Protein backbone atom coordinates (compact mmCIF):
# COMPACT_ATOMS: atom_id res chain seq x y z
CA UNK A 1 0.00 0.00 0.00
CA UNK A 2 1.54 3.34 -0.97
CA UNK A 3 1.60 6.15 1.58
CA UNK A 4 -0.04 9.22 0.05
CA UNK A 5 0.41 12.34 2.17
CA UNK A 6 -1.94 15.34 2.13
CA UNK A 7 -0.61 18.77 1.28
CA UNK A 8 -1.72 21.65 3.47
CA UNK A 9 -3.89 22.76 0.52
CA UNK A 10 -5.57 19.30 0.51
CA UNK A 11 -6.27 19.59 4.23
CA UNK A 12 -7.62 23.14 3.85
CA UNK A 13 -9.91 22.07 1.00
CA UNK A 14 -11.30 19.16 3.03
CA UNK A 15 -11.90 21.32 6.12
CA UNK A 16 -13.60 24.01 4.01
CA UNK A 17 -15.80 21.40 2.37
CA UNK A 18 -17.14 20.17 5.71
CA UNK A 19 -17.24 23.66 7.20
CA UNK A 20 -14.67 23.20 9.95
CA UNK A 21 -11.99 25.76 10.79
CA UNK A 22 -9.19 23.57 12.08
CA UNK A 23 -8.38 19.87 12.52
CA UNK A 24 -8.51 20.35 16.30
CA UNK A 25 -12.19 21.29 16.00
CA UNK A 26 -12.90 17.72 14.84
CA UNK A 27 -12.07 16.58 18.37
CA UNK A 28 -14.58 18.93 20.01
CA UNK A 29 -16.63 16.04 21.34
CA UNK A 30 -13.80 15.01 23.67
CA UNK A 31 -14.34 17.00 26.88
CA UNK A 32 -11.63 19.55 27.67
CA UNK A 33 -10.94 17.87 30.99
CA UNK A 34 -9.87 14.67 29.25
CA UNK A 35 -7.46 16.33 26.85
CA UNK A 36 -3.72 16.40 27.42
CA UNK A 37 -2.07 19.57 26.22
CA UNK A 38 1.44 18.83 27.36
CA UNK A 39 3.40 15.76 28.34
CA UNK A 40 5.60 16.60 31.32
CA UNK A 41 8.98 14.90 31.15
CA UNK A 42 8.75 14.30 27.42
CA UNK A 43 11.12 16.57 25.52
CA UNK A 44 10.18 18.54 22.43
CA UNK A 45 10.51 16.79 19.08
CA UNK A 46 13.95 15.44 18.23
CA UNK A 47 15.45 15.12 14.79
CA UNK A 48 15.72 11.70 13.13
CA UNK A 49 19.45 11.67 13.86
CA UNK A 50 18.89 12.41 17.53
CA UNK A 51 16.11 9.83 17.86
CA UNK A 52 18.21 7.14 16.16
CA UNK A 53 21.07 7.80 18.55
CA UNK A 54 18.86 7.87 21.65
CA UNK A 55 17.06 4.64 20.75
CA UNK A 56 20.31 2.85 19.85
CA UNK A 57 21.78 3.82 23.24
CA UNK A 58 18.68 2.65 25.10
CA UNK A 59 18.67 -0.63 23.17
CA UNK A 60 22.33 -1.21 24.00
CA UNK A 61 21.51 -1.14 27.73
CA UNK A 62 19.53 -4.36 27.20
CA UNK A 63 22.78 -6.14 26.42
CA UNK A 64 22.58 -9.66 25.01
CA UNK A 65 21.47 -11.67 28.03
CA UNK A 66 21.35 -15.43 28.14
CA UNK A 67 17.66 -16.12 28.47
CA UNK A 68 15.99 -18.87 30.53
CA UNK A 69 12.61 -17.25 30.97
CA UNK A 70 9.43 -18.25 29.15
CA UNK A 71 6.18 -17.78 31.08
CA UNK A 72 4.09 -17.08 28.00
CA UNK A 73 6.64 -15.61 25.56
CA UNK A 74 9.34 -17.80 24.08
CA UNK A 75 12.72 -17.25 22.44
CA UNK A 76 13.07 -19.30 19.29
CA UNK A 77 15.37 -19.15 16.34
CA UNK A 78 13.71 -17.18 13.55
CA UNK A 79 15.06 -18.03 10.08
CA UNK A 80 16.35 -14.92 8.28
CA UNK A 81 13.79 -15.07 5.43
CA UNK A 82 10.87 -14.61 7.86
CA UNK A 83 11.42 -10.91 8.51
CA UNK A 84 13.18 -10.24 5.21
CA UNK A 85 9.88 -11.20 3.55
CA UNK A 86 7.54 -9.80 6.19
CA UNK A 87 9.08 -6.33 5.91
CA UNK A 88 8.71 -6.14 2.14
CA UNK A 89 6.73 -3.07 1.10
CA UNK A 90 3.83 -5.12 -0.26
CA UNK A 91 2.90 -6.42 3.18
CA UNK A 92 4.71 -4.20 5.67
CA UNK A 93 1.85 -2.03 6.81
CA UNK A 94 0.13 -1.11 10.04
CA UNK A 95 -3.11 -1.42 8.12
CA UNK A 96 -4.43 -4.66 6.64
CA UNK A 97 -6.15 -3.91 3.36
CA UNK A 98 -8.99 -6.38 3.22
CA UNK A 99 -10.51 -5.37 -0.11
CA UNK A 100 -10.39 -8.45 -2.30
CA UNK A 101 -9.69 -6.42 -5.45
CA UNK A 102 -6.61 -4.83 -3.89
CA UNK A 103 -5.19 -7.52 -1.63
CA UNK A 104 -5.12 -11.03 -3.01
CA UNK A 105 -1.66 -11.58 -1.54
CA UNK A 106 -2.60 -10.49 1.97
CA UNK A 107 -5.81 -12.49 1.87
CA UNK A 108 -3.98 -15.57 0.67
CA UNK A 109 -1.49 -15.25 3.54
CA UNK A 110 -4.43 -15.06 5.97
CA UNK A 111 -5.94 -18.13 4.35
CA UNK A 112 -2.65 -20.03 4.62
CA UNK A 113 -2.28 -18.96 8.27
CA UNK A 114 -5.78 -20.18 9.03
CA UNK A 115 -5.15 -23.48 7.25
CA UNK A 116 -1.94 -24.13 9.18
CA UNK A 117 -3.38 -23.15 12.58
CA UNK A 118 -6.53 -25.22 11.95
CA UNK A 119 -4.29 -28.14 10.98
CA UNK A 120 -2.04 -27.78 14.03
CA UNK A 121 -4.98 -27.64 16.44
CA UNK A 122 -6.98 -30.27 14.49
CA UNK A 123 -10.01 -27.99 14.50
CA UNK A 124 -12.39 -27.19 11.61
CA UNK A 125 -11.93 -23.47 11.18
CA UNK A 126 -9.56 -20.69 12.21
CA UNK A 127 -9.85 -16.92 12.19
CA UNK A 128 -7.16 -14.66 10.74
CA UNK A 129 -5.62 -13.99 14.21
CA UNK A 130 -6.45 -11.82 17.21
CA UNK A 131 -4.46 -9.25 19.20
CA UNK A 132 -2.62 -11.65 21.49
CA UNK A 133 -3.00 -14.85 23.47
CA UNK A 134 -4.46 -13.18 26.55
CA UNK A 135 -7.21 -11.34 24.68
CA UNK A 136 -7.80 -14.50 22.60
CA UNK A 137 -8.61 -16.33 25.85
CA UNK A 138 -11.00 -13.52 26.85
CA UNK A 139 -12.65 -13.69 23.43
CA UNK A 140 -12.91 -17.47 23.72
CA UNK A 141 -14.77 -17.12 27.03
CA UNK A 142 -17.20 -14.59 25.55
CA UNK A 143 -17.64 -16.80 22.49
CA UNK A 144 -18.40 -19.85 24.64
CA UNK A 145 -21.20 -17.96 26.38
CA UNK A 146 -22.72 -17.03 23.01
CA UNK A 147 -22.24 -20.48 21.52
CA UNK A 148 -23.64 -22.45 24.47
CA UNK A 149 -27.23 -21.35 24.19
CA UNK A 150 -28.64 -23.85 26.69
CA UNK A 151 -26.28 -22.66 29.41
CA UNK A 152 -27.58 -19.63 31.27
CA UNK A 153 -24.94 -19.29 33.99
CA UNK A 154 -22.01 -17.70 32.09
CA UNK A 155 -19.81 -19.52 34.63
CA UNK A 156 -16.42 -20.55 33.29
CA UNK A 157 -13.96 -22.73 35.18
CA UNK A 158 -10.39 -21.53 34.81
CA UNK A 159 -7.65 -23.65 36.38
CA UNK A 160 -5.04 -21.85 38.49
CA UNK A 161 -2.49 -23.46 36.17
CA UNK A 162 -3.58 -21.15 33.33
CA UNK A 163 -1.17 -18.25 32.71
CA UNK A 164 -1.96 -15.78 35.56
CA UNK A 165 -1.59 -12.72 33.35
CA UNK A 166 -3.99 -14.19 30.81
CA UNK A 167 -6.44 -15.02 33.61
CA UNK A 168 -6.35 -11.40 34.76
CA UNK A 169 -6.84 -10.07 31.23
CA UNK A 170 -9.72 -12.47 30.60
CA UNK A 171 -11.36 -11.48 33.85
CA UNK A 172 -11.07 -7.73 33.18
CA UNK A 173 -12.39 -8.04 29.63
CA UNK A 174 -15.31 -10.32 30.51
CA UNK A 175 -16.55 -9.09 33.89
CA UNK A 176 -18.46 -6.18 32.38
CA UNK A 177 -20.48 -8.69 30.39
CA UNK A 178 -21.51 -10.70 33.41
CA UNK A 179 -19.16 -13.64 33.04
CA UNK A 180 -18.04 -15.41 36.19
CA UNK A 181 -14.56 -16.95 35.98
CA UNK A 182 -14.04 -19.47 38.79
CA UNK A 183 -10.63 -20.84 39.72
CA UNK A 184 -9.96 -24.58 39.77
CA UNK A 185 -7.26 -25.78 42.18
CA UNK A 186 -4.12 -27.71 41.23
CA UNK A 187 -2.03 -30.33 42.92
CA UNK A 188 1.07 -28.75 44.45
CA UNK A 189 2.80 -32.14 44.05
CA UNK A 190 2.00 -32.63 40.39
CA UNK A 191 1.63 -29.04 39.20
CA UNK A 192 -1.50 -29.99 37.29
CA UNK A 193 -5.23 -29.48 37.66
CA UNK A 194 -6.91 -32.13 39.81
CA UNK A 195 -9.60 -33.81 37.66
CA UNK A 196 -11.42 -34.89 40.86
CA UNK A 197 -11.81 -31.21 41.77
CA UNK A 198 -14.43 -31.07 39.04
CA UNK A 199 -16.71 -33.47 40.92
CA UNK A 200 -18.17 -30.66 42.99
CA UNK A 201 -19.46 -29.09 39.78
CA UNK A 202 -21.19 -32.28 38.57
CA UNK A 203 -24.62 -31.51 37.19
CA UNK A 204 -24.20 -27.74 37.59
CA UNK A 205 -24.72 -25.30 34.75
CA UNK A 206 -21.11 -24.53 33.80
CA UNK A 207 -20.74 -22.83 30.42
CA UNK A 208 -17.14 -23.73 29.72
CA UNK A 209 -13.96 -25.24 31.11
CA UNK A 210 -10.58 -23.75 30.15
CA UNK A 211 -7.67 -26.18 29.79
CA UNK A 212 -4.14 -24.93 29.14
CA UNK A 213 -1.75 -27.49 27.64
CA UNK A 214 1.10 -27.41 28.49
CA UNK A 215 0.03 -25.42 31.53
CA UNK A 216 1.74 -22.32 32.90
CA UNK A 217 4.19 -24.52 34.83
CA UNK A 218 5.11 -26.39 31.65
CA UNK A 219 3.44 -29.55 33.00
CA UNK A 220 1.08 -31.65 30.92
CA UNK A 221 -2.52 -31.69 32.09
CA UNK A 222 -4.68 -34.80 31.84
CA UNK A 223 -6.57 -33.19 28.97
CA UNK A 224 -8.55 -36.34 28.16
CA UNK A 225 -9.97 -36.72 31.68
CA UNK A 226 -10.77 -33.00 31.93
CA UNK A 227 -12.38 -32.99 28.47
CA UNK A 228 -14.49 -36.07 29.20
CA UNK A 229 -15.82 -34.47 32.38
CA UNK A 230 -16.74 -31.32 30.45
CA UNK A 231 -18.46 -33.24 27.67
CA UNK A 232 -20.43 -35.35 30.14
CA UNK A 233 -21.47 -32.25 32.07
CA UNK A 234 -22.66 -30.34 28.98
CA UNK A 235 -19.78 -27.89 29.38
CA UNK A 236 -17.88 -26.45 26.41
CA UNK A 237 -14.10 -26.92 26.28
CA UNK A 238 -11.74 -24.00 25.65
CA UNK A 239 -8.22 -25.19 24.89
CA UNK A 240 -5.25 -22.86 25.42
CA UNK A 241 -2.22 -24.22 23.59
CA UNK A 242 1.31 -23.37 22.52
CA UNK A 243 1.46 -23.99 18.76
CA UNK A 244 5.05 -25.30 18.91
CA UNK A 245 4.05 -27.99 21.40
CA UNK A 246 1.38 -29.25 19.00
CA UNK A 247 4.11 -30.82 16.88
CA UNK A 248 4.40 -33.39 19.69
CA UNK A 249 1.23 -33.28 21.80
CA UNK A 250 -2.32 -34.36 20.99
CA UNK A 251 -4.10 -31.40 19.36
CA UNK A 252 -7.23 -29.92 21.00
CA UNK A 253 -9.39 -31.39 18.24
CA UNK A 254 -8.52 -34.84 19.61
CA UNK A 255 -8.90 -34.24 23.36
CA UNK A 256 -11.23 -36.62 25.17
CA UNK A 257 -13.80 -38.35 23.01
CA UNK A 258 -14.97 -35.43 20.88
CA UNK A 259 -12.28 -32.75 21.06
CA UNK A 260 -12.34 -29.16 22.28
CA UNK A 261 -14.93 -26.60 21.15
CA UNK A 262 -12.57 -23.64 20.92
CA UNK A 263 -8.78 -23.59 20.81
CA UNK A 264 -6.78 -20.41 21.27
CA UNK A 265 -3.33 -19.24 22.21
CA UNK A 266 -0.35 -17.10 21.41
CA UNK A 267 1.39 -17.47 18.04
CA UNK A 268 4.42 -15.43 19.16
CA UNK A 269 6.63 -18.58 19.27
CA UNK A 270 6.14 -18.77 15.49
CA UNK A 271 8.53 -16.17 14.14
CA UNK A 272 7.85 -13.22 16.44
CA UNK A 273 10.85 -11.97 18.43
CA UNK A 274 10.63 -11.30 22.17
CA UNK A 275 9.75 -7.70 22.81
CA UNK A 276 8.82 -5.80 25.95
CA UNK A 277 5.11 -6.46 26.14
CA UNK A 278 4.53 -7.15 22.48
CA UNK A 279 2.95 -6.71 20.03
CA UNK A 280 2.21 -10.41 19.93
CA UNK A 281 -0.38 -12.32 17.97
CA UNK A 282 -3.32 -14.42 19.16
CA UNK A 283 -5.01 -17.24 17.30
CA UNK A 284 -8.35 -18.97 17.60
CA UNK A 285 -9.93 -22.05 16.03
CA UNK A 286 -13.26 -23.76 16.53
CA UNK A 287 -15.66 -26.39 15.27
CA UNK A 288 -17.85 -25.56 12.26
CA UNK A 289 -20.99 -25.58 14.40
CA UNK A 290 -19.72 -22.57 16.39
CA UNK A 291 -18.21 -20.60 13.51
CA UNK A 292 -20.83 -17.84 13.54
CA UNK A 293 -19.97 -17.07 17.14
CA UNK A 294 -16.24 -16.82 16.45
CA UNK A 295 -14.89 -13.25 16.60
CA UNK A 296 -12.54 -11.75 14.05
CA UNK A 297 -11.90 -11.93 10.38
CA UNK A 298 -11.92 -15.06 8.26
CA UNK A 299 -10.43 -15.22 4.77
CA UNK A 300 -12.09 -17.73 2.47
CA UNK A 301 -11.09 -19.33 -0.81
CA UNK A 302 -13.51 -18.96 -3.68
CA UNK A 303 -13.58 -18.50 -7.47
CA UNK A 304 -14.01 -15.30 -9.44
CA UNK A 305 -16.35 -14.70 -12.40
CA UNK A 306 -13.96 -16.55 -14.71
CA UNK A 307 -13.75 -19.53 -12.39
CA UNK A 308 -10.21 -18.70 -11.25
CA UNK A 309 -9.37 -19.29 -7.58
CA UNK A 310 -9.21 -16.22 -5.37
CA UNK A 311 -9.53 -15.11 -1.77
CA UNK A 312 -11.96 -12.87 0.07
CA UNK A 313 -13.23 -12.19 3.56
CA UNK A 314 -16.17 -14.36 4.48
CA UNK A 315 -18.83 -14.64 7.21
CA UNK A 316 -18.66 -10.87 7.66
CA UNK A 317 -22.25 -10.68 8.84
CA UNK A 318 -20.88 -11.54 12.32
CA UNK A 319 -18.79 -8.41 12.35
CA UNK A 320 -18.95 -4.90 13.72
CA UNK A 321 -19.46 -2.98 10.48
CA UNK A 322 -22.62 -5.00 9.82
CA UNK A 323 -23.88 -6.16 13.21
CA UNK A 324 -22.87 -3.01 15.12
CA UNK A 325 -23.48 -3.55 18.84
CA UNK A 326 -24.48 -7.17 18.27
CA UNK A 327 -21.23 -8.16 16.57
CA UNK A 328 -19.34 -11.15 17.95
CA UNK A 329 -16.64 -8.80 19.22
CA UNK A 330 -15.65 -5.17 19.24
CA UNK A 331 -12.27 -6.27 17.90
CA UNK A 332 -13.08 -7.07 14.29
CA UNK A 333 -9.55 -6.95 13.00
CA UNK A 334 -6.48 -9.14 12.99
CA UNK A 335 -2.79 -8.82 13.83
CA UNK A 336 -1.79 -8.72 10.18
CA UNK A 337 1.96 -8.20 10.23
CA UNK A 338 2.78 -10.76 12.92
CA UNK A 339 0.30 -13.21 11.41
CA UNK A 340 2.31 -12.85 8.18
CA UNK A 341 5.56 -13.59 10.02
CA UNK A 342 4.00 -16.63 11.71
CA UNK A 343 2.74 -17.94 8.37
CA UNK A 344 6.13 -17.62 6.68
CA UNK A 345 7.86 -19.10 9.73
CA UNK A 346 5.59 -22.15 9.76
CA UNK A 347 5.88 -22.58 6.01
CA UNK A 348 9.68 -22.53 6.23
CA UNK A 349 9.83 -25.00 9.11
CA UNK A 350 7.20 -27.37 7.79
CA UNK A 351 5.81 -30.20 9.94
CA UNK A 352 9.19 -31.92 10.28
CA UNK A 353 11.02 -28.72 11.18
CA UNK A 354 8.45 -27.79 13.80
CA UNK A 355 8.68 -31.23 15.33
CA UNK A 356 12.47 -30.94 15.50
CA UNK A 357 12.15 -27.57 17.25
CA UNK A 358 9.64 -29.00 19.74
CA UNK A 359 11.78 -32.07 20.43
CA UNK A 360 14.88 -29.94 20.93
CA UNK A 361 12.93 -27.78 23.41
CA UNK A 362 11.99 -30.85 25.44
CA UNK A 363 15.56 -32.19 25.39
CA UNK A 364 17.12 -28.83 26.36
CA UNK A 365 14.68 -28.32 29.20
CA UNK A 366 15.40 -31.81 30.52
CA UNK A 367 19.11 -31.03 30.38
CA UNK A 368 18.58 -27.68 32.13
CA UNK A 369 16.47 -29.18 34.92
CA UNK A 370 18.99 -31.91 35.53
CA UNK A 371 21.91 -29.45 35.57
CA UNK A 372 20.25 -27.04 38.00
CA UNK A 373 18.83 -29.75 40.24
CA UNK A 374 22.40 -31.02 40.73
CA UNK A 375 22.99 -27.88 42.81
CA UNK A 376 22.26 -28.25 46.54
CA UNK A 377 19.28 -26.11 47.51
CA UNK A 378 17.56 -26.57 44.14
CA UNK A 379 15.00 -29.25 43.31
CA UNK A 380 12.27 -29.82 40.75
CA UNK A 381 8.83 -29.00 42.11
CA UNK A 382 6.80 -31.45 40.07
CA UNK A 383 7.17 -34.95 38.72
CA UNK A 384 5.25 -35.91 35.60
CA UNK A 385 5.69 -35.06 31.94
CA UNK A 386 6.42 -31.52 30.84
CA UNK A 387 7.14 -29.57 27.66
CA UNK A 388 9.77 -26.83 27.69
CA UNK A 389 9.32 -25.24 31.11
CA UNK A 390 9.77 -26.47 34.66
CA UNK A 391 9.32 -25.21 38.20
CA UNK A 392 12.32 -25.27 40.55
CA UNK A 393 11.98 -24.94 44.30
CA UNK A 394 14.76 -22.96 45.96
CA UNK A 395 16.05 -22.81 49.52
CA UNK A 396 15.79 -19.01 49.55
CA UNK A 397 13.76 -16.25 47.82
CA UNK A 398 14.20 -16.12 44.05
CA UNK A 399 14.15 -12.35 43.54
CA UNK A 400 17.65 -11.49 44.87
CA UNK A 401 19.13 -14.49 43.02
CA UNK A 402 17.52 -13.35 39.76
CA UNK A 403 18.96 -9.86 40.27
CA UNK A 404 22.45 -11.24 40.78
CA UNK A 405 22.11 -13.48 37.75
CA UNK A 406 20.89 -10.52 35.66
CA UNK A 407 24.00 -8.61 36.69
CA UNK A 408 25.97 -11.42 35.04
CA UNK A 409 23.88 -11.28 31.89
CA UNK A 410 21.68 -14.27 32.71
CA UNK A 411 17.89 -14.04 32.82
CA UNK A 412 17.35 -16.89 35.23
CA UNK A 413 13.61 -17.43 35.05
CA UNK A 414 10.24 -16.20 36.23
CA UNK A 415 9.74 -15.63 39.97
CA UNK A 416 6.53 -17.50 40.88
CA UNK A 417 6.25 -16.14 44.44
CA UNK A 418 3.90 -13.29 43.56
CA UNK A 419 1.27 -15.34 41.74
CA UNK A 420 1.85 -18.71 43.41
CA UNK A 421 2.95 -17.99 47.01
CA UNK A 422 1.77 -21.46 48.09
CA UNK A 423 4.80 -22.98 46.35
CA UNK A 424 7.31 -21.09 48.52
CA UNK A 425 10.45 -19.75 46.78
CA UNK A 426 9.95 -21.04 43.24
CA UNK A 427 11.29 -20.28 39.81
CA UNK A 428 9.78 -21.05 36.41
CA UNK A 429 12.54 -21.83 33.91
CA UNK A 430 12.54 -22.49 30.20
CA UNK A 431 14.96 -23.74 27.59
CA UNK A 432 14.15 -23.74 23.89
CA UNK A 433 16.20 -25.05 20.98
CA UNK A 434 18.26 -21.84 21.19
CA UNK A 435 19.98 -22.87 24.46
CA UNK A 436 23.16 -24.86 24.04
CA UNK A 437 24.83 -27.24 26.47
CA UNK A 438 27.40 -24.50 27.12
CA UNK A 439 24.60 -21.97 27.88
CA UNK A 440 23.13 -24.38 30.39
CA UNK A 441 26.52 -24.99 32.01
CA UNK A 442 27.05 -21.21 32.27
CA UNK A 443 23.75 -20.83 34.10
CA UNK A 444 24.46 -23.79 36.39
CA UNK A 445 27.92 -22.48 37.32
CA UNK A 446 26.57 -19.00 38.10
CA UNK A 447 23.67 -20.31 40.18
CA UNK A 448 25.93 -22.69 42.05
CA UNK A 449 28.36 -19.89 42.88
CA UNK A 450 25.54 -17.63 44.04
CA UNK A 451 24.16 -20.32 46.27
CA UNK A 452 27.63 -20.49 47.78
CA UNK A 453 28.49 -24.06 47.20
CA UNK A 454 30.88 -26.03 45.00
CA UNK A 455 29.61 -27.87 41.93
CA UNK A 456 28.42 -31.30 43.07
CA UNK A 457 29.83 -33.04 40.03
Amino acid at each position, binding site marked *: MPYIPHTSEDVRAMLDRIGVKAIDDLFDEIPKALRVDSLPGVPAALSEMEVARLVAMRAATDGRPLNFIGAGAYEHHIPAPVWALTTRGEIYSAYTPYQAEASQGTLQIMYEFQSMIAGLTAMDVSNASLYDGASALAEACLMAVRAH*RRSKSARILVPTTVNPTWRRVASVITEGQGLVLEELPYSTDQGTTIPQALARYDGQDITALVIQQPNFFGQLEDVDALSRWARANGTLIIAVVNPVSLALLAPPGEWGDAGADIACGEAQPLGVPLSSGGPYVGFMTTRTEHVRQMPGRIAGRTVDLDGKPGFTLTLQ*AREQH*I*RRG*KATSNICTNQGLLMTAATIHLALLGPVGLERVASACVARTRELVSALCGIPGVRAAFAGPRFHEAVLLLDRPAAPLLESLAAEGIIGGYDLSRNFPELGPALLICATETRTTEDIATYARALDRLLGRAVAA
Partner: protein
Amino acid sequence: MSKIPGDLRYTKSHEWLRTLPDGSIEIGISDHAQAALGDLVFVEVPEAGRTLSAGDACAVVESVKAASDVYSPVGGEVIAGNDQLATKPELINADPYGQGWILRMRPTGDRGGAELLDATAYAAEVAAAG
Protein backbone atom coordinates in the same frame (compact mmCIF):
# COMPACT_ATOMS: atom_id res chain seq x y z
CA MET B 1 -44.75 -7.10 -6.06
CA SER B 2 -44.30 -9.13 -2.93
CA LYS B 3 -46.94 -11.50 -1.66
CA ILE B 4 -48.95 -10.37 1.37
CA PRO B 5 -51.52 -13.05 2.36
CA GLY B 6 -54.76 -11.61 3.68
CA ASP B 7 -55.12 -13.99 6.63
CA LEU B 8 -51.96 -12.90 8.47
CA ARG B 9 -51.03 -9.92 10.62
CA TYR B 10 -47.82 -7.95 10.15
CA THR B 11 -45.44 -5.61 11.92
CA LYS B 12 -43.66 -2.55 10.61
CA SER B 13 -40.40 -4.45 11.10
CA HIS B 14 -41.63 -7.05 8.55
CA GLU B 15 -42.53 -10.01 10.74
CA TRP B 16 -45.78 -11.88 10.11
CA LEU B 17 -48.03 -13.61 12.68
CA ARG B 18 -50.41 -16.47 12.20
CA THR B 19 -52.77 -17.63 14.95
CA LEU B 20 -52.97 -21.44 14.83
CA PRO B 21 -56.15 -23.37 15.73
CA ASP B 22 -54.84 -24.22 19.22
CA GLY B 23 -54.28 -20.53 20.03
CA SER B 24 -50.52 -20.63 19.58
CA ILE B 25 -48.82 -18.15 17.27
CA GLU B 26 -46.49 -18.80 14.35
CA ILE B 27 -44.00 -16.10 13.39
CA GLY B 28 -41.87 -15.54 10.31
CA ILE B 29 -40.62 -12.75 8.08
CA SER B 30 -42.54 -11.35 5.13
CA ASP B 31 -41.91 -11.98 1.45
CA HIS B 32 -40.83 -8.36 1.18
CA ALA B 33 -38.27 -8.87 3.97
CA GLN B 34 -36.76 -12.02 2.46
CA ALA B 35 -36.50 -10.34 -0.95
CA ALA B 36 -34.77 -7.33 0.58
CA LEU B 37 -32.28 -9.52 2.45
CA GLY B 38 -31.44 -11.69 -0.53
CA ASP B 39 -30.29 -15.32 -0.34
CA LEU B 40 -30.26 -16.39 3.29
CA VAL B 41 -27.25 -18.39 4.43
CA PHE B 42 -27.98 -18.83 8.13
CA VAL B 43 -30.90 -18.58 10.51
CA GLU B 44 -30.59 -18.66 14.28
CA VAL B 45 -33.88 -19.75 15.85
CA PRO B 46 -34.77 -19.55 19.56
CA GLU B 47 -34.74 -22.56 21.88
CA ALA B 48 -38.06 -24.03 22.99
CA GLY B 49 -38.93 -22.86 26.48
CA ARG B 50 -37.46 -19.39 26.13
CA THR B 51 -39.68 -16.62 27.45
CA LEU B 52 -39.99 -13.59 25.20
CA SER B 53 -41.37 -10.13 25.86
CA ALA B 54 -42.96 -8.17 23.06
CA GLY B 55 -40.18 -6.48 21.11
CA ASP B 56 -37.43 -8.95 22.10
CA ALA B 57 -34.95 -9.97 19.42
CA CYS B 58 -35.79 -13.66 19.07
CA ALA B 59 -34.03 -14.83 15.90
CA VAL B 60 -31.30 -13.76 13.49
CA VAL B 61 -31.57 -14.05 9.72
CA GLU B 62 -28.28 -13.75 7.89
CA SER B 63 -27.86 -13.25 4.17
CA VAL B 64 -24.66 -12.84 2.20
CA LYS B 65 -24.87 -9.10 2.76
CA ALA B 66 -26.44 -8.54 6.16
CA ALA B 67 -27.57 -10.07 9.40
CA SER B 68 -30.84 -8.83 10.85
CA ASP B 69 -32.72 -9.47 14.04
CA VAL B 70 -36.26 -10.78 14.05
CA TYR B 71 -38.36 -9.21 16.81
CA SER B 72 -41.15 -10.96 18.60
CA PRO B 73 -44.28 -8.85 18.06
CA VAL B 74 -45.94 -10.27 21.18
CA GLY B 75 -44.81 -11.79 24.47
CA GLY B 76 -44.95 -15.50 25.17
CA GLU B 77 -43.12 -18.76 25.60
CA VAL B 78 -41.37 -20.37 22.64
CA ILE B 79 -42.88 -23.77 21.83
CA ALA B 80 -40.59 -24.55 18.93
CA GLY B 81 -38.03 -23.03 16.61
CA ASN B 82 -38.02 -24.26 13.02
CA ASP B 83 -35.02 -26.60 13.18
CA GLN B 84 -35.20 -27.26 9.43
CA LEU B 85 -33.80 -23.76 8.91
CA ALA B 86 -30.48 -24.85 10.44
CA THR B 87 -29.65 -26.80 7.28
CA LYS B 88 -32.10 -25.13 4.87
CA PRO B 89 -32.16 -21.37 5.50
CA GLU B 90 -33.32 -20.96 1.90
CA LEU B 91 -36.77 -22.19 2.92
CA ILE B 92 -37.43 -18.60 4.02
CA ASN B 93 -36.59 -17.33 0.53
CA ALA B 94 -38.66 -20.00 -1.19
CA ASP B 95 -41.68 -20.13 1.10
CA PRO B 96 -41.64 -17.30 3.66
CA TYR B 97 -45.20 -17.85 4.85
CA GLY B 98 -45.14 -21.66 4.90
CA GLN B 99 -42.10 -23.90 5.37
CA GLY B 100 -40.06 -20.80 6.20
CA TRP B 101 -41.78 -20.15 9.53
CA ILE B 102 -39.24 -19.26 12.24
CA LEU B 103 -40.85 -19.95 15.60
CA ARG B 104 -44.07 -20.94 17.31
CA MET B 105 -45.03 -19.50 20.67
CA ARG B 106 -47.73 -19.62 23.30
CA PRO B 107 -48.71 -15.96 23.78
CA THR B 108 -49.08 -14.49 27.25
CA GLY B 109 -51.20 -11.56 26.09
CA ASP B 110 -48.25 -9.14 26.25
CA ARG B 111 -48.77 -6.96 23.21
CA GLY B 112 -46.11 -4.52 24.29
CA GLY B 113 -47.92 -1.73 22.50
CA ALA B 114 -46.69 -3.13 19.19
CA GLU B 115 -48.93 -2.16 16.35
CA LEU B 116 -50.10 -5.18 14.34
CA LEU B 117 -51.14 -4.41 10.81
CA ASP B 118 -53.59 -6.22 8.56
CA ALA B 119 -52.59 -7.09 5.01
CA THR B 120 -53.91 -3.85 3.52
CA ALA B 121 -52.12 -1.66 6.04
CA TYR B 122 -48.91 -3.64 5.66
CA ALA B 123 -49.10 -3.38 1.87
CA ALA B 124 -49.43 0.38 2.24
CA GLU B 125 -46.43 0.38 4.60
CA VAL B 126 -44.29 -1.54 2.11
CA ALA B 127 -45.41 0.67 -0.76
CA ALA B 128 -44.64 3.83 1.23
CA ALA B 129 -41.15 2.52 2.05
CA GLY B 130 -40.64 2.28 -1.70
